[in-house]
């Protein structure tokens, strides 16, 4: 009775180890191709547009409502001990340190990670990746590296914009609903904000950009077995990127702020 459970558990651990090994090997090869010239500039530009520009609407909407709800929630909490003046600061610190990068990361994982896995997976099952190799083009260089570069560079920019939009959301609720003085709200926002708050969020964003694109590329590249395989790759890319984002988020926070 207990033995099958243990066998099962053992198998799962082994499978997990094998996956970690495969992903690490993939990441190693990808990074190697990423830092080594030549660079496919047109590909990088295309991916930056895809990851950054086309994610703006969804990330912007997420950010503005998050900022608004933060202001509202902290008001209902802080009003109990007359600490309303802390609201602008709570909003901006929560956004820049945590919610900006994490929510933008999760949104982009859903949008871009899935699309990447689907595109590369389709190229895999229709032999386009083999075709690249026969034309003496390294698929890591042509497909994977531009996506990684675009992810690492673009996500911090996206998060910076999300931070600003989120603060604007908090400001709107603060001034028009909670009757803050607009100048006071802005002063309180900026006064206690530290460089570290914004910087740590941008570091997170760069790491999340790497994880999202790595998962999209890895699951697409290793997909097999036709349309069903590509579908599975898409799901796996989003799920694994999301879990990795939340895990990495904790450890980066600890590295920055644990005393």
């Amino acid at each position, binding site marked *: 009775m207990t033995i099958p459970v243990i066998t099962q558990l053992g198998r799962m651990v082994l499978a997990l180890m094998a996956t970690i090994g495969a992903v690490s090997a993939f990441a190693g090869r990808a990074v190697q191709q990423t830092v080594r010239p030549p660079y496919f500039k047109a590909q990088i530009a295309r991916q930056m547009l895809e990851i950054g520009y086309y994610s703006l609407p969804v990330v912007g909407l997420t950010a503005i409502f998050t900022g608004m709800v933060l202001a509202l929630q902290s008001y209902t909490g802080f009003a109990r001990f007359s600490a309303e003046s802390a609201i602008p600061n709570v909003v901006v610190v929560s956004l820049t340190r945590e919610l900006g990068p994490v929510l933008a990361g999760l949104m982009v994982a859903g949008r871009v990670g899935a699309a990447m896995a689907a595109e590369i997976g389709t*190229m895999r099952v*229709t032999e*386009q990746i*083999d*075709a690249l*190799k*026969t*034309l*003496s*083009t390294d698929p890591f260089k042509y497909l994977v590296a531009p996506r990684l570069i675009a992810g690492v560079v673009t996500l911090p920019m996206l998060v910076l914009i999300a931070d600003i939009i989120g603060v604007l959301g908090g400001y709107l609720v603060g001034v028009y609903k909670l009757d803050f003085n607009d100048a006071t709200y802005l002063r309180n926002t900026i006064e206690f904000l530290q460089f570290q708050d914004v910087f740590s969020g941008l570091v997170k964003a760069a790491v999340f950009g790497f994880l999202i694109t790595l998962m999209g590329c890895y699951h697409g590249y290793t997909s097999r077995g036709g349309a069903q395989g590509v579908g599975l790759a898409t799901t796996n890319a989003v799920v694994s990127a999301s879990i990795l984002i939340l895990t990495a988020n904790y450890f980066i926070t600890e590295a920055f702020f644990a005393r």
Partner: protein
Amino acid sequence: MTVPKISLRGVTKSFGPKQVLRGIDLDVATGESVVVIGGSGTGKSVLLKCILGLMEPDAGSIKIDGEETTRLGDAERNRVMRKFGMLFQGGALFDSLRVWQNVAFGPIQSDGMAPARAREVAIEKLANVGLGPDIAELFPSELSGGMQKRVALARAIAREPEIIFFDEPTTGLDPIMADVINELVVKCVSALGATAVSITHDMASARKIGHRIAMLYDGKLIWQGPVGEIDHCGNPHVEQFIHGRAEGPIQMQVRKL
């Protein structure tokens, strides 16, 4: 004795417990056109991918121009790959790129040709396969199956390779288009003076394209010989295949429902 362009000895390849290739010996002379025939799923595509280095064989030797090519490093592999052109079974055109960019991909990305010049080359190669410059700006998904095959053929010959592989060039085409493709294949190979290995299960195509035919069955090449000899080769497997009979030594694995 001249060195064969391609020489295989004892090549084997398995996927898990499934042995697909069980010891392939094959020599292809420079300028020769060999056609490999065999049923679906017998490992014909796997054989080509092993020779190209897209798959690593489990054992055996693969020599190109006398040079051993199993277990080459990346840079070495690229150098050898430069000799090859490949027409994939499904075309494998890059669907995010325009037709001319597909054809010009090798010249631009790998050989560093200027895009304007590569575009001219692409238009010229498209003309070689009977396609006008008007389709150069289209995307592959906007073309019919026969046109896609021709674009894929143009891409395969764009770098003027020494060796060209054709994986089922006529599968899925109507008989007339199939014959058009057969003629293009013959024309392109002779124009380049290339060595060719083609895969097909279409006997009309095999007879037209090949100088020599080899039959793959159960992981081995069970018969090889000049095209003219295939009709009286005396091998029951080959005869069953070329006459397309359900009865014979080759048993299709049809599962009872």
